[in-house]
């Protein structure tokens, strides 16, 4: 019996599994180990297929592990069962879910670096990405990478200590690297092998690795840095490439480090290569132009594709110069060993002018709209004397026009050029191009459906898509709709949103039914924001700039906006943002902001000069209208950003020149009190200047200003200013000196409104600029004199065609005295004229003048109007301007006059005109401006022939200078008919 049993039975492998033992038992309790988990209990409960009070299924155990692991927040998960007497049969089970946390990089911090490499370069080399899973082994790699970066920069003995701060509650790993770079190695020589066809000293000098100042060698070698090594190699390569050795190569084989001396020797291999000569036959091309057009010079290698590119460039160049039939071919051969000759044979043909472009067959788009998209240009007098035409450009234009039609529902459009007419208008060489458009039918959307989205979303999506019912049907519109729809979902917490489109013909002809299918996917929300990297900045300052918060849908655009706002504070050199655990499938995620505070102090130093009619004696009465002079200038400044960790800026700017000494301190609270549209500024000023030639003014001033940005175009400035001005060296009639040379205290309250709708403030082509500046000086504000001051400006810009701009500007100013001192203090009056108002005058030379000395004494009203025609002159970077300025500074508002003629030498209340020509040279910092003006009616006036002492001797009641019988001490003078002005930026 036993034998039979033994024979019939074999081991049962399936009876001892957990499944067999626990399957179906009632789950009485589920607990976590550790009890504190990174996911909130409700989210855990939602995730787990295991529920208390339900039977246990092993399938759910596996599912729970998978679900928890998929969140990305756990490194390991296991589930234990404990017997429990719950349930009907007393065979319940308590589950314990044990987890091991994952950690994510929340910041990489470097200390002890010595630039180069800078902190950012070291962090980049570490390759530890913010928000991603922290893996211990990645630290070793990061240290190794940083060591390599340091070695490349001469730090061969650098040591790196690392430390990781972990926060279990948010699963953050903040990584710190403390560097001890040691001393940077120096070069100690160069070892070169290969074809070195020059003295070694010359090669060493070319690298710049040996110390030296210009051509004077200095003993010793420079420090090793990555940039210096690369620059040195590049310079040496260029040096060897001189003399048409275009393919010369310089290779760094190794940088041999010597620990005993902390020096490194570069081992270089030089291959000077053959002489490569490029020449043209048929037509001469300058060497510089050839270097520009034939890419073998830039690429430093010779191959067929580069030679063909050079061939095309040369042909295109000649065609752009009017040789529209230009043909270029080339041959390459080696006339002797180690010498390669590349010969471009150019047949330029006759020169043409593109005189006329015609477009026919276009009904949907007008001629101007199509021309805007074309490269061909007809000949014009100044800019392109022969126009711009080539077969390639013509084809490109045809394609551009066809694309425009296709994007607007004309899939069958055909654009051709039936003929290019030579001898247009009967003149040989004149070309006319006719482009023919065959539009074909326009296809429109008959019906558009959006599936897979809630009704509310659909209403919104319909408002942002282009391909609605009746609109043109085009792939371009569908692509734009796709971007709009996905952009909407990506910014509302659906990172996995998908979009599909399909279409089928509608019953009506040329109509299409369009179907959009959107799959939003799982929505993700912000669990919280983690701000790391702050050292001195107050957290509240940062928190108020972050636009995402717990519970919000994750929006990449809002994260990017927050990043921009933080950059706008101007106190961070780097603002990194990332989602923590980006790959994890969890409903809520942390948004990380890692901030790198910028250096606290910055210094600036500048030298410059004023050149113009600024000269004349300081202590004499010569040249009341100024004479050509030169004033060198030095400026030094220091700024401290992020003062007290509040994001405020404290700065001091000083300037010294022969015309001015100035120190301006300022305390700026940008984004005041968290309002990004407000900025509060306190600025004390000391200024000792004589830019108005009549006097020197020493000014102590304090200003408090609150700037408010109302919209992109409109802003207000509210301010209170208090100043005390002391005048000296007055060059006016002695009887007025006593009245005007007293120190004056002025307290002003006022504001400005600025409306700026210009397309480009530096070089405006269209738009409008309005400013209103109003100030009120009153004894209640600490002023010794009461007056109001109003200054209005209106400038408009009008494009004429594609390249010409008509710009005009009007300025009106008015000062009204209300009480206090008997006259408006000299320093508070309007002084104007010059480069930015009326170019008939040198700077600050407009308006009333002292009747005895002829020096300007300012006015209480001003009126200026300028008109400019701005046009391209030579190429793309040099423009020209024709201008007319008119206006003056007047004694009072009631004396503003448009009168052309000056009535007598003591009449200054008339309209001075000037016309002229200017040149604008485009530079990265704005156009450099040179204006030459002629005035048909510059002011004439009496000057004083004598010294300041002589002036004091003049009896107060004697009419020394009058039109009738002027004293010999009076001389008739005038502002020159011709003026020149050189400055930066457009006039207005």
């Amino acid at each position: 019996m036993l034998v039979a049993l033994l024979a019939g039975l074999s081991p049962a492998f399936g009876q001892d599994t957990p499944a067999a033992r626990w399957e179906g038992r009632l789950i009485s309790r589920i607990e976590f180990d550790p009890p504190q988990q990174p996911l909130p209990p409700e989210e855990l409960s939602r995730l787990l297929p295991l529920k208390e009070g339900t039977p246990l299924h092993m399938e759910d155990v596996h599912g729970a592990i998978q679900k928890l692991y998929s969140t990305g927040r756990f490194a390991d998960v296991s589930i234990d069962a404990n017997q429990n007497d719950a349930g009907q049969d007393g065979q319940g089970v308590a589950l314990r879910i044990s987890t091991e946390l994952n950690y994510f990089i929340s910041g990489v911090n470097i200390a002890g670096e010595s630039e180069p490499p800078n902190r950012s370069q070291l962090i980049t080399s570490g390759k530890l990405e913010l928000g991603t899973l922290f893996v211990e082994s990645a630290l070793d790699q990061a240290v190794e990478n940083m060591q390599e970066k340091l070695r490349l920069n001469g730090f061969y003995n650098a040591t790196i200590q690392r430390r990781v701060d972990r926060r279990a509650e948010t699963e953050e790993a903040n990584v710190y690297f403390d560097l001890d770079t040691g001393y940077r190695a120096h070069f100690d020589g160069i070892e070169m092998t290969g074809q070195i066809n020059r003295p070694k000293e010359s090669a060493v000098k070319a690298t710049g690795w040996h110390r030296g100042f210009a051509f004077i060698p200095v003993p010793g070698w420079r420090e090793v840095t990555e940039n210096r090594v690369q620059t040195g190699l590049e310079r040496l390569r260029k040096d060897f490439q001189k003399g048409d050795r275009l393919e010369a190569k310089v290779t760094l084989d190794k940088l041999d480090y010597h620990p005993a001396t902390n020096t490194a020797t570069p081992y270089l291999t030089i291959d000077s290569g053959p002489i490569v000569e490029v020449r043209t036959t048929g037509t001469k091309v300058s060497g510089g132009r050839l270097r520009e057009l034939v890419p073998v010079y830039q690429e430093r290698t010779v191959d067929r594709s580069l030679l063909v590119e050079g061939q095309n460039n040369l042909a295109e160049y000649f065609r752009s110069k009017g040789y529209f039939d230009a043909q270029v071919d080339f041959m390459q051969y080696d006339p002797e060993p180690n010498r390669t000759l590349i010969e471009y044979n150019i047949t330029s043909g006759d020169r043409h002018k593109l005189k006329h472009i015609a477009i026919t067959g276009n009904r949907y788009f007008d001629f101007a709209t199509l021309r805007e998209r074309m490269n061909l240009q007809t000949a014009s007098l100044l800019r392109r004397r022969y126009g711009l035409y080539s077969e390639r450009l013509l084809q490109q234009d045809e394609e551009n026009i066809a694309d425009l039609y296709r994007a607007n529902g004309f899939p069958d459009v055909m654009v051709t050029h039936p003929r290019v007419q030579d001898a247009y208008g009967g003149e040989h060489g004149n070309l006319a191009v006719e482009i023919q458009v065959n539009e074909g039918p326009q296809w429109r959307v008959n019906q558009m459906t959006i599936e897979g989205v809630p009704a509310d979303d659909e209403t919104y999506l319909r408002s942002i898509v282009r391909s609605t019912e009746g609109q043109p049907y085009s792939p371009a519109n569908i692509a734009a709709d796709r971007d709009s729809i996905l952009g909407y979902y990506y910014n509302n917490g659906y990172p996995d949103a998908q979009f599909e489109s399909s279409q089928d013909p509608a019953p009506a002809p040329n109509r299409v039914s369009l179907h959009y299918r959107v799959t939003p996917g799982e929505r993700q929300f912000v669990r919280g924001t983690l701000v790391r990297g702050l050292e001195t900045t107050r957290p509240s300052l940062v928190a108020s700039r972050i636009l995402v918060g717990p519970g919000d849908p994750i929006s990449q655009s809002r994260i990017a906006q927050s990043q921009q706002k933080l950059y706008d504070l101007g106190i961070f050199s780097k603002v990194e943002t990332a989602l923590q655990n980006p790959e994890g499938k969890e409903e809520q995620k942390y948004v990380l902001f890692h901030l790198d505070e910028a250096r606290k102090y910055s210094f600036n130093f500048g030298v410059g000069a004023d050149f113009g009619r600024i000269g004349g004696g300081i202590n004499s009465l010569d040249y009341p209208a100024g004479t050509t002079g030169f004033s060198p200038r030095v400026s030094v400044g220091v700024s401290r950003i992020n003062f007290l960790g509040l994001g405020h800026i404290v700065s001091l700017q000083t300037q010294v020149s022969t015309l001015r000494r100035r120190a301006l301190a300022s305390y700026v609270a940008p984004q005041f009190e968290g309002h990004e549209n407000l900025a509060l500024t306190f600025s004390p000023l000391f200024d000792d200047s004589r830019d108005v030639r009549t006097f020197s003014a020493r000014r102590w001033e304090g200003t408090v200003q609150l700037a408010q940005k109302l919209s992109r175009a409109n802003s207000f400035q509210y301010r209170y200013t208090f100043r005390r001005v002391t005048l000296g060296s007055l060059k006016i009639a002695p009887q007025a000196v006593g009245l005007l040379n007293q120190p004056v205290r002025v307290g002003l309250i006022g504001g400005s409104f600025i409306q700026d709708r210009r397309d480009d403030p530096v070089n405006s082509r269209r738009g409008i600029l309005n400013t209103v500046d109003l100030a009120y000086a009153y004894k209640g504000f600490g002023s010794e004199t009461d007056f109001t001051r109003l200054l209005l400006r209106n400038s408009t810009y009008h494009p004429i065609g594609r390249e010409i701009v008509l710009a005009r500007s009007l300025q009106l100013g008015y000062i009204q005295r209300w009480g206090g001192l008997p006259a408006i203090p000299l320093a508070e009056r309007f002084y104007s004229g010059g480069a930015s108002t009326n170019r008939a005058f040198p700077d600050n030379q407009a308006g009333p003048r002292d009747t005895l000395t002829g020096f300007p004494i300012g006015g209480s009203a001003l009126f200026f109007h300028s008109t400019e025609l701005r046009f391209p002159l030579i190429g793309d970077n040099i423009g020209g301007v024709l201008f007319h300025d008119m206006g003056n500074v007047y004694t009072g508002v009631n004396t503003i006059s448009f009168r052309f003629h000056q009535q007598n030498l003591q009449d200054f209340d008339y309209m001075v005109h000037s016309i002229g020509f200017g040149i604008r040279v485009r530079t990265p910092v704005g156009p450099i401006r040179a204006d030459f003006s002629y005035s048909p009616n510059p002011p004439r006036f009496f000057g004083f022939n004598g010294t300041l002492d002589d002036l004091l001797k003049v009896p107060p009641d004697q009419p020394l200078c009058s039109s009738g019988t002027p004293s010999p001490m009076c001389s008739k003078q005038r502002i020159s008919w011709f003026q020149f002005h050189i400055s930066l930026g457009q006039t207005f």
Partner: protein
Amino acid sequence: MFGHTLVAAGLILGLPGLEFVFAASVKAETLDRIAVSVGQEVITESQVILDLRVAAFLDRKPMDLSGAAKRQSAERLVDQLLILREAVDSHLTLPSTEATIGLVAPYAAESDYQAELKRYGISERDLGEHLLAGLRTLSFTDRRFRPDVQVSPEDIRSYYDKLPRPASTAAPLPSFEDSREQIEKLLVEQGTLDALDKWLEMARKAANVRYREKAFE
């Protein structure tokens, strides 16, 4: 293993109650844990053991739940997961459940078959899924890698030339022409497997495969 012995002894001694005694005596144990993670996906210890059970059932061999066997099974499951993931991403049409019918060697009676399933602790569904995964893996390998394997006449000739010649003339080596087709098939097979191995090596590197040693103790 100790459980095995007790249960087997219980059966042998005709003491089925011992099984229950053993089960009831277990107060606490690990139900399941991660054995391997492949990116965001996991293969649990229970899956590894199930794979070993099904394999043993199909081979009609005793079960081996040693650490080495578990490790081998986990490796196989990782490969299978990577292949099936790639197959889904490539939108390949894969064999369906019906394809597994008839793959298991027939049993004398249905009751024998069910008894064997029970003995190995697996269900018909477990078996079907195991077979389906295997079929799909084979299908993907065949369609993805086989078309790229090129075997030239020189390769076939070279293989044939390197075949060991039998010592006796009684059973001579078939002629080259007679062997050509078979050699070509063999070389294609070999090339396919080589390509699969290369691909798996790369896929494993990219997928962040991490083993938890505790599951293989």
